[in-house]
């Protein structure tokens, strides 16, 4: 192992180092999509149970991030984007990150099972296990389809939120799961386009490294089209109303426009269109899930 098992004598790991290990930005997106799933679910939930469910989903997502950093410390150290994460920079030892991550993972699932319900706990456990074992330990290092299949872990939180309220797993929240699942490839391949050399140096078989940038640009557009079509499903299936339809139409057009710009971009050195798509994709997902939440708060009736 290339990393020190103990931290340096002049510094111990700070709270900020551990917070960084939880990938707070990813956590915020996970919580946001999970809350949308909770709000769409039929039935009522005690506010404190809802708070506990959101807390468990947030901690479970953070645990997944910590375990991802613990297992991927060798890759992170070789990439400019991730070399300053707590483990490669020597702030936290890999063994401490493992202990921290597994404690939070087991704790979040147990609390979800004890205080919310078993269906939500089982889905949370499945999500963490899929992210750690299927994506981090297997897919990421072995196939350019890594983020396509592995994206399921990041897509499941709306179903966890739904299960937390209803106590069961239904087909309806999987419409939201499908949107996040299809959204993940164009989002991460945009990043991989402008970080291609970074991934190549680390030996991670991302699509631009294995199949080239031209193929990646086409795949980005195909998945962006699929995402935007899936984005209309909540309105078409009676889960969302007019506000959502408007946001998904305008946001979808913006997202597609950014994906088309990536297809046409010839600036392989700076990849400005891919950088833009990365940001636009985040805003698109936030916008459509925010529309779902606002509609529920404002009691906007579904279209069908």
């Amino acid at each position, binding site marked *: 192992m290339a990393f020190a098992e103990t931290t340096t004598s*002049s*510094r*111990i790991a700070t*709270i900020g180092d551990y917070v960084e290990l939880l990938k707070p930005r990813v956590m915020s997106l996970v919580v946001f999509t999970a809350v949308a799933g909770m709000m769409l679910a039929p039935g009522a939930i005690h506010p404190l149970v809802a708070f*506990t469910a959101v807390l468990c989903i947030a901690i479970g997502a953070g645990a997944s991030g910590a375990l991802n950093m613990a297992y991927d410390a060798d890759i992170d150290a070789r990439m400019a984007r991730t070399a300053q994460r707590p483990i490669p920079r020597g702030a936290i030892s890999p063994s401490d990150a493992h202990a921290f991550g597994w404690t939070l993972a087991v704790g979040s699932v147990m609390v979800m099972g004890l205080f919310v319900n078993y269906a939500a706990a089982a889905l949370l456990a499945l999500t963490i296990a899929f992210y750690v074992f299927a994506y981090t330990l297997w897919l990421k290092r072995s196939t350019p389809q890594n983020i396509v299949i592995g994206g399921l872990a990041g897509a499941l939180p709306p179903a966890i939120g739904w299960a937390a309220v209803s106590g069961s797993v239904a087909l309806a929240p999987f419409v939201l799961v499908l949107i996040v699942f299809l959204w993940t490839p164009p989002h991460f391949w945009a990043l991989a386009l402008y970080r291609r050399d970074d991934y190549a140096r680390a030996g991670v078989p991302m699509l631009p490294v294995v199949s080239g940038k031209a193929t990646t640009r086409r795949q980005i557009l195909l998945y962006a089209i699929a995402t935007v079509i899936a984005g209309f499903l909540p309105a078409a299936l009676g889960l969302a109303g007019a506000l959502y339809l408007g946001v998904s139409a305008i946001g979808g057009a913006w997202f597609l426009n950014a994906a088309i710009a990536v297809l046409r971009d010839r600036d392989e050195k700076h990849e400005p269109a891919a950088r833009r798509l990365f940001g636009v994709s985040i805003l698109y997902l936030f916008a459509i899930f925010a529309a779902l939440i606002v509609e529920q708060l404002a009691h906007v009736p579904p279209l069908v």
Partner: protein
Amino acid sequence: MAGNGNDEIGRQRRKRNLALGLGLGFLVVLFFVMTMVRLGGHVLD
């Protein structure tokens, strides 16, 4: 300076211990309140 280094480590350790203590205290309160919620409204009568 070794003394300053030890002071800094001590300060960081105290901050971390305080955060850990607050986190554990929060969990104790959360578990208590959630137990009351799950058991129902009349359990404290």
